[in-house]
């Protein structure tokens, strides 16, 4: 800078005037709260429409829009239409905090839904807790969140692994190798897998944790060849980890061992992979597009009507989002009020809905849902073949540690 002193005058003036100017704008544009009792009910959603997480975000958003449309077309809630205010967090956690602030403080929404990763949920949670705004987290996650203000509709590890591991042990063999993503979800899921393996009389011959940004699975493939398990439990997540299935197949390992997974498909793995690489991967989820129930047939046709017949696949997470909205709507109707405490009480009354995945019941104590868990096998058409359905699988772990009716002030995430 040539004249260091010359700029301070200008700088200060500019800074001060900019601040005052923006203050004026800010004061003007503070919007009115949408809480009058006749107009539409403002509800909020924060998901990732752009950035790397849009693989999951896109179907979540589509499901959100469809659910709102469905609720509104059935007369709304309490005779009022829902007005969805949605934000794109752009795969950036700080944006979750910002938009959660905005939804609760500016838009004054009655409920916030959203968040994909657990980190994004933990960014939202303190804010909705502070403003006492009801919050639904609708994605598959590692489990254990226990918070009066938070409801979870996604499956938790114990829920998926409880039927999956015995199935694998019975059908594929008793030597199990666990390959998990190296973060909270992977570690906790791996612990559950070990526990259920022991119960099923199987032995875990090895466990590998893979960093989320890693896509070179050479070392894991070698370990698998040395250990020669019957079953590989894959708890991998994200685009990078999809490479595992590909490298697994190209080494020819898919001929000698079976992959079972609680994550395969949630990140569109079966779309991205070629049929010959994914065929035979066995998974457990509450929902598959192929489920043959009247509710699901109707749901899928509505979905295709809105988003086109060529929509790649309606994933599990889309339906858990759908379930979140419908559970909330049912609870508001039951409570007859938007008051948070009354809605919580309604949700804690053993409320259940019929969803595309079957009956979904909110557990009063744990705020997690009991739902069907189906076991399916990836087919050669980028889809799944449903093998068996286990009805009403409870979130056993959450139910055992978390009772929010007895201890309403609990606010933590339990880890096994």
């Amino acid at each position: 800078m040539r004249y260091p002193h010359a700029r301070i005058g200008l700088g200060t003036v500019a800074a001060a005037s900019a601040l005052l100017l923006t203050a004026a704008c800010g004061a003007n544009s503070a919007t009115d709260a949408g809480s009058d009792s006749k107009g539409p009910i403002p509800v909020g959603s924060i998901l990732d429409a752009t950035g790397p997480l849009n693989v999951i975000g896109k179907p979540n958003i589509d499901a959100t829009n469809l659910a709102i449309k469905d609720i509104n077309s059935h007369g709304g809630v309490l005779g009022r239409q829902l007005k969805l205010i949605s934000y794109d967090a752009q795969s950036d956690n700080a944006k979750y905090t910002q938009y959660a602030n905005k939804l609760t403080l500016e838009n004054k929404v009655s409920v916030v839904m959203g968040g994909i990763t657990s980190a994004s949920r933990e960014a939202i949670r303190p804010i909705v807790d502070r403003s006492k705004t009801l919050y639904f987290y609708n994605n598959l996650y590692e489990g254990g969140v226990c918070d009066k203000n938070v409801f979870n509709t996604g499956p938790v590890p114990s829920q998926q692994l409880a039927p999956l591991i015995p199935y694998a042990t019975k059908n594929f063999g008793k030597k199990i190798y666990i390959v998990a993503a190296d973060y909270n979800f992977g570690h906790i899921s791996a612990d559950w897998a070990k526990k259920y393996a022991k119960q099923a009389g199987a032995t875990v011959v090895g466990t590998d944790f893979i960093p989320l940004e890693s896509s070179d699975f050479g070392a894991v493939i070698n370990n698998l060849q040395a250990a020669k398990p019957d079953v590989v439990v894959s708890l991998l997540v994200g685009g990078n980890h999809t490479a595992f299935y590909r490298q697994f197949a190209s080494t020819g390992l898919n001929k000698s061992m079976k992959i079972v997974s609680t994550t395969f498909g949630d990140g569109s793995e079966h779309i991205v992979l070629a049929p010959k690489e994914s065929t035979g991967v066995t998974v457990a989820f509450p929902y598959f597009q192929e489920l043959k129930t009247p509710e699901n047939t109707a749901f899928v046709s509505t979905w295709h009507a809105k988003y086109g017949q060529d929509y790649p696949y309606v994933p599990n997470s889309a339906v858990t989002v759908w379930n979140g909205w419908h559970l909330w709507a049912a609870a508001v109707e039951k409570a007859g009020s938007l008051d948070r405490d009354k809605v919580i009480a309604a949700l804690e009354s053993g409320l259940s809905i019929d969803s595309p995945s079957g009956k979904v019941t909110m557990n009063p104590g744990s705020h997690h849902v009991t739902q069907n868990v189906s076991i399916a096998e990836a087919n050669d058409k980028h889809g799944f073949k449903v093998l068996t359905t286990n009805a009403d699988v409870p979130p056993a772990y959450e139910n055992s540690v978390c009772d929010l009716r007895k201890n309403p002030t609990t606010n933590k995430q339990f880890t096994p």
Partner: protein
Amino acid sequence: MMSTNNRTLSGSVAPIWHRLRKHVPVEIPGAVAVTLAGAVLATTVAPFRALDWSLWVIFGLLALSFTFVWGRAGIFSFGQTAFFGIGAYAYGVLGIDLFPQTGETTTALVAAVVIAAVVAATLGYFIFYGNVGDVYVSIITLAFTLVLLTFMSSTADPSYHIGQALLGGYNGIVGVPPLMLPGGGQMVSPNGLLFTCVAVAAFIGFGIHLLLRRPFGRILAGLRENELRTELLGYDVRRYKLVAFTIGGAIAGLAGGLFAAWGTSVNPNVFSLPQAALVPIWVLVGGRRSLLGAFVGVAIVQGVSDALGGGGGSATPIVLGTLLIAVVVLLPEGVLPTLSALARRFVPALGRASVAAGPAGRTGSPLGDSVIDDSVIDDTVIGGESRKATSITAVDVHKRFGGVAALAGASLEVAPNGVHCLIGPNGAGKSTFFNMLAGRYRPTSGTVLLGDEQITLRRPDERARRGIGIKLQVPSLYGELTAFENVWLAAYGAKRDIGEADVRARGALAWLHLSEKARQPAGELSHGERQWLEIGMVMASDPKVVLLDEPTAGMTREETMRVVELIHDLARTATVIVVEHDMEFVRQLGAPVTMFHEGRIFTSGSIEQLRADERVLDIYLGRGTSHAAH
């Protein structure tokens, strides 16, 4: 200036005001003004907006740390996000652990700053004392950031905890307490947080402004412009870089601590690649050197992306990407510098007013570079105390590059005062010898003495502080700094006293007859003037020994004649060694000559003696076989 009246009027208001103006730097009222504006702002906006803006100010601080480290000190560090993240984690952990005892979180915030600074200092020591090059610094800092990302993401196990705080792996630390001031026992409200952030940013911003006006700032500017030159002026470049890097780390750590308090959670995303890339983007959009630009850049980039997230649909990244490209192509200097240039052009009064209130008029300035005239020349040529000339001696110096012996046992003693010329054909070893005296090369064997002191293994900056003034063959100035700042840096490097440096710098410019160009950037001077200016820098540094490498390269006759005079002036107080090709110039200097050939000293004598020597001509013309065995 009216300071002479101070004593007679003591007791009345005016002198107090004057004394205040003299001793209170202008930054303090500036910071207070912005803080007050922040207070007004914080009381008028809606809470959600206060929270959004708090984040912008926090990111602005992070950007500011990068502006300081890169825009001002020239270190391109991707590590600012690492220190930001470390600050956030430190606040998270200590907030959880200390809050139950102390009931406040400012201790945690302060600790976050300290921890980030310590980590920055350690990493900086590792980098700068290893003489790691520019681009490589950015990659090391990036790798460091990614190491933290990898580590923090894999701390999911409950065994990773510090006190009560679980590091929490990818989910991060939850339950981080918000900002709690001592004695309050209550969390700071959204608007209070905005006020706090603005106040903190104002004092940090103006603090940096003040720091940059101190000699330290001018040295950093020198460092950024021309590292080698700065080293040759006696500044320990590594140490200044380290200090700048540490300050940058501390500010980033502060921003990180505030970030954790703002979001009440911390996760490893703070160490991610997109976050690391965002910091330079903010700064480039705002303007790389501008302190305020750091905040403006954040407001623009975050403002646009926040707004798009509310309804930009799937086009958000395309809009953002286009915006970045547009800034690069249309506003290459960044938004703020372009705006203030426009403001100066269309509102001339603004520019004039602030310039008039500039250097000379502003009393709080630690660096008074007031205008000078040519009349101050005295016996010591440029004024001030002078050191005594000393001898410089090389004893049996060898230097090998790989298999090639550039010097094969050269010994030379140059007595105090006077001029001494080194000549020789290309490849004779004179330049290697020169660099050996300057400290840029270490000899393979042999010793170099300054007076009686062994300096064989001393770095160039250590030699410079001991009184060796150096001018390299390639012109080496601070092109963007003014002529005055160029010589001032030379003088300060030797004297480390602002007053004395001012006197010497003015004297040196007067001596060069360049006083009226004191305020011109050195890069805008003519070729000859730049060469003179460099000799002036040598003079300003009050050397005992002066080393000049081809000081007249590319000069006209007249310019060369002027250099002869300047060198003779230099020789009044210093021992001057000149490496030169131009025989005519050597003749005009009328100094004893030493000729190099094949890495050794071939012969010494007066220029006339050498000219009469057949062997010398043989070597120069490459004829004969006995001497020129290439």
